């Protein structure tokens, strides 16, 4: 390697100790002949040293009890059990209610969120817009920052547009829609085969969180969940496992 092929990234990697010895030696040779760059690199090294001096010791402090991982997990397990007891009681009440004459109303069957109003709206919006070729979205992925800021403002929630590229889906864009009488954000992603999935997101503030709930209707699959600040429905016709992977990743990034 000759000196001319040293890149800006090499210089950073040199400072951060991320170069192998051979490349490191090449940067050394390059810096010997480029005093301005050498001075810049020296300043960066001093920054790294200063940052270490400022912050490194914090990692050696004793951890306060409120950050004890096992106690936090224990607290959740307890509240989980309390919730289970309540749920059991609620089920008993419901069983009594059913016996008392609810049977005829057709409330049988496995719980399927396919009929939840928000899911219905998400499915309808998905069907309507994923078929659009010319205007599938209002704001395209080329204006991603604007899209995130705009939808965040309208929903009054900090929306991070999930990065689904590791799963093979890239952002097409998004739009604003009404759902349940409130502003809702629809985000659309597609894979390299043009298969599209959409998210419908509304603000939520009841503080209830839920796990992913699966639903299926009209040949479309959906996952619904509620986070601390948002309710979200993911809709698509991709396989259930793949849809769940997408939901999980988005769940992690959105809230």
């Amino acid at each position, binding site marked *: 390697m000759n000196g001319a092929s040293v890149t800006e990234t090499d210089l950073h990697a040199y400072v951060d100790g*991320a170069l192998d010895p051979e490349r490191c030696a090449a940067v050394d040779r390059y810096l010997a002949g480029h005093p301005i760059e050498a001075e810049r690199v020296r300043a960066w090294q001093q920054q*790294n040293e200063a940052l270490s001096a*400022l912050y490194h010791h*914090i990692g050696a*402090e004793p951890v306060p009890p409120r950050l004890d991982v096992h106690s*936090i*997990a224990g607290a959740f397990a307890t509240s989980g059990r309390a919730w289970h007891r309540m749920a059991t009681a609620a089920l008993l009440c419901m069983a009594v209610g059913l016996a008392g004459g609810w049977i005829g109303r057709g409330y049988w069957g496995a719980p399927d969120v396919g009929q939840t109003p928000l899911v219905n709206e998400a499915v309808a919006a998905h069907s309507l817009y994923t078929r659009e070729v010319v205007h599938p979205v209002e704001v395209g992925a080329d204006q991603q920052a604007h899209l995130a800021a705009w939808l965040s403002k309208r929903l009054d929630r*900090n929306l991070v547009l999930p990065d689904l590229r590791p799963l093979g889906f890239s952002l097409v864009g998004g739009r604003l829609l009404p759902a349940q009488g409130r502003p809702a954000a629809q985000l659309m992603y597609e894979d390299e085969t043009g298969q599209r999935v959409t998210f419908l997101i509304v603000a939520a503030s009841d503080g209830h969180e839920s*796990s992913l709930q699966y639903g299926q209707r009209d040949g479309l699959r959906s996952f619904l969940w509620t986070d601390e600040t948002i309710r979200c429905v993911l809709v698509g016709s991709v396989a259930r496992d793949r849809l769940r992977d997408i939901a999980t990743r988005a769940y992690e990034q959105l809230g």
Partner: protein
Amino acid sequence: MSALLDEIEGCVPALRRFARALTHDADLADDLVQDSLERAIRKRDLWRPTGPLRAWLFRILVNVYRNDLRTRRRIAAVLPLYARPSEASVPAAQHVRLALAETARAMQVLPAEQREALLLVAVEGMSYAEAAAVLGIPSGTLMSRLARGRAALRRATEEGPPRLRTVK
């Protein structure tokens, strides 16, 4: 499951350090870590332990921090981690301490995204790939944040009082 908790526990000191360096506020930093741990523990059933745990925890912390910035707007008016030494302080260590104080101050006025990138790489010792994964950005974007952060820190510290120069 307990093994996963142990592994999470092992990351707590680094999470605290990162949070403190982000906020320069010890209480707020521990609040962020606590929120992050609660989220992580609640969501651990959804997280399939295939990827690196540390990156996942830091990603949660970054998200919590950003949400917090937005809701509380507690950014700039923070307590200084290191008070500025007076001009009359001990001469021997003065330059070094000045350089540290300058750096601490410069870090606080850096845009959050550059501060995050710098801390993950320079203090947490993450590889560029891991830091980019934490921030959910391509590595090219990470490099440009790092470069801008370093340039801004350099401007800020060189405009300040003369600092110690190490000559090799």
